[in-house]
């Protein structure tokens, strides 16, 4: 039947943005290796609530790796030790019996802690609002097949568009840079004829907003790409640099 393990959890608890936080240690026994990491945290929370304590707060929603809500810095990795998955898709079979698991919130000045493991990612919203779109209103657009798009460009745009906005790139970056996030959106829209028209304006606006919000400078360590659950490539960053520099040179 199911294999079970016992684990020790070191979890960051913090009451609010301005309150000092600290690690708490919890022991959890008989966790099925088939359960997901968040289900393991559910079990912990059930136990805490049963004891009259407040549960550990963390963001989560779809639990199938696409909404980007879940975060967590687990044992030195955003989204934990497995490759190409979000925390919600991480399973306990990746951990050993008796292992100590350290769970922390995303750490970056751009993502202040709200409570425990939940952080505020409004900065990403603000970046999107500065230009992460094609400026078209509803209605009055040409037929979908009016403009042909090469399959290669469409596929590459799709790869860039697979970003889920979770913030693991910023969390992994020693510089707290949001370049992978910004570049993924700029690339997606720059690759498509519909988005090409305002590509220069978009690149300038999004970079300006990103800088304004205090994200760091990219030093090309590639940590973002290594930890991205959707394998978004840093070639997007090169494209953003290219778009931005050429836009500025044309001004």
């Amino acid at each position, binding site marked *: 039947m*199911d294999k079970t393990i016992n684990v020790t959890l070191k979890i960051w608890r913090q009451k609010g943005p301005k309150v000092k936080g600290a690690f708490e240690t919890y022991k959890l026994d008989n966790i099925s290796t*088939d*359960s997901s990491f*968040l*289900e393991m945290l*559910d*079990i912990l929370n*059930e136990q*805490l*609530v*049963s004891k*009259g304590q*407040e*549960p550990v*707060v963390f*963001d989560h*929603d*779809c*639990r*199938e790796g*696409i*909404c*980007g*809500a879940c975060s967590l810095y687990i044992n030195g990795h955003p989204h934990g030790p497995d490759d190409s998955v979000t925390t919600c898709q991480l*399973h306990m*079979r990746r951990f050993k019996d008796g292992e100590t698991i350290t769970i922390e919130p995303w750490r970056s000045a751009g993502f202040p802690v*709200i*409570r425990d493991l939940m952080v505020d*990612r409004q900065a*990403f*919203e603000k970046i999107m*609002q500065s230009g*992460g*779109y*094609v400026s*078209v*209103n*509803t*209605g009055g*657009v040409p*037929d*979908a*097949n009016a403009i*042909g*798009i*090469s*399959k290669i460009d*469409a*596929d590459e*745009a*799709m790869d860039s*568009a*697979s970003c*889920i*906005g979770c913030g693991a790139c910023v969390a992994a970056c020693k510089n707290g840079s949001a370049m992978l996030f910004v570049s993924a959106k700029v690339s*997606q*829209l720059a690759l*498509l004829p*519909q*988005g090409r028209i305002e590509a220069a304006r978009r690149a300038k606006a999004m970079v300006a907003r990103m800088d304004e919000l205090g994200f760091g400078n990219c030093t090309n360590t590639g940590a973002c790409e290594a930890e991205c659950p959707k394998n978004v490539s840093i070639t997007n960053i090169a494209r953003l640099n290219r778009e931005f520099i050429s836009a500025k040179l044309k001004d």
Partner: protein
Amino acid sequence: MTKIDAKIPQGPLAEKWSYYKSHQKLVNPANKRRLDIIVVGTGLAGASAAASLGELGFNVMNFCISDSPRRAHSIAAQGGINAAKNYQNDGDSVYRLFYDTIKGGDYRAREANVYRLAEVSNDIIDQCVAQGVPFAREYGGLLDNRSFGGAQVSRTFYAKGQTGQQLLLGAYSALSRQIEKKTVKLYTRYEMVDLVVIDGRARGIIARNLVTGKLERFAAHAVVIATGGYGNTFFLSTNAMNCNGSAAWQCYKKGAYFANPCMAQIHPTCIPVHGEFQSKLTLMSESLRNDGRIWVPKKKEDAAAIRAGKMKPTQIKEEDRDYYLERRYPAFGNLVPRDVASRAAKERCDAGFGVGNTGLAVYLDFSDAINRLGENVVRARYGNLFQMYEKIVDDNPYETPMMIYPAIHYTMGGTWVDYELQTSVPGLFAIGEANFSDHGANRLGASALMQGLADGYFVLPYTIQNYLADQIRVPRFSTELPEFASAEKEIQDRIAKLMSIKGKRTVDSIHKELGLIMWDFVGMGRNEEGLKTAIEKLKAVKKEFWSNVFIPGSGSDMNTELEKALRVADFIEIGELMARDALDRQESCGGHFREEYQTEEGEALRQDDKFSYVSCWKYMGEGQDPELIKEPLDYEFIVRQQRNYKA
């Protein structure tokens, strides 16, 4: 008895929507700025509506339960979106999409609404492409299509296995643009907790700021709810953890009819349940049924050996496998609609042929496709889904067949709306999955995205003006009005009551209990006795909840347990209404299968003479039985037939 008017425009089917649009009232640009609209929800329907209304010049307030609109569960739709473009030259048309949707819904949807949906489906694709949605393309540069269940044409547009994500990001982009332009104000981490009705019209909401725990009041000339379905009543479903039916339920309690609550879709291809700690179920896209073949062992002893772990599926010889969908439905084979596929799986498992260690699973086998097309082609088509399966189950689907089982996925029922998407409360509109919608008793694959965006981009922005045109002289409302105060007081008392119970049970434990009752008695197969049992059991659950739940922390601070408790309190009542509706509907149609009403071959048997109506439930007060109002479904243009996917 209350009469119900769906406000269907006059004229031939194909001209109703054009007729409506050319005769409706509009609001001029200067007046739009003076009108406030609240949109609750930021999924496909909510985001597209908020963005479109903002573009038109209305002053929009948009509420999001998560930290970003991009978290809405529309994002998880995998397979695609239907449209009657006929780009493939395979005989598609607006009429055919309309017909397939009506038939797929087992003749329990409104003709005029569905025809309009099929009509605007093409505009949606155009709109999304213009927004930069990277749909899959052919080498020639034009859009590609795939097939989906319940249709004989390829009309599904897709973006890898992430179509919902890309469409939502498109709508979210449009919304972000309006937020920057300040036509839309976005409130993230806010949950609507009550509807405010003044003089019979929806005039605002009370929302709980989930970060501070404070209740806040918002006033507007109209309220739109786009808050999705109530599938999480079952605890285990493919819905996201935050999906809930509470907004719709509050509207119900303030006078909006709740329509067809029993009509819930059970999706045939989900990863089976594997333990009691499980928090949700994961869907495997319907598109897998294009190439995967569904089977169980022919011999009971083989199935038993597999369950005991003594035998592997690959050891079962071809002639000992029962490809039951191909056997029962030769014309559609593995691509029968969802309700049919789900019931067939349950039938086999109930008969003792199920596999997996619980016996509640069937195989979805790709070995034929791999032999025919090569592993690389299969990987290119479904690679991300296979990877997801492997991460969850720890089994390689290229080598051993996937195991799947049906799970609750979508609710066709919801807040009743007329042709204008207006509920029975004037000024309150419902769009997307939140309304009882265009899918009748069963939704076809790739139609939810279509409906959500149709409502948000192309229907509501028109129809809401017909209402608001009368409101231009109404000044902005003050949130100090007594109606706001009393609504806030009501919810405050409710929270205080919940916090004061201090019982022994966690919210989740009660929710799981609710889910089991729902799955056992109001699930895939329902019968009179079971439904009556369910109603009794749900009453007991409700009592247990309100006397023995425990919520730690404070009611006026961030409190995730309290959030869950408020939702579960509503789920219990929704569950009861579902059971009540299922009990009333003495027929089988689509997702609603009453065991008493089936053909000799076990197919759903409708009772058109008695049940060709929409069940609209009207709230009559706490402890009172709700009133059932019937909206007759008169089919003017289509002749009802027994659904046949066999030939």
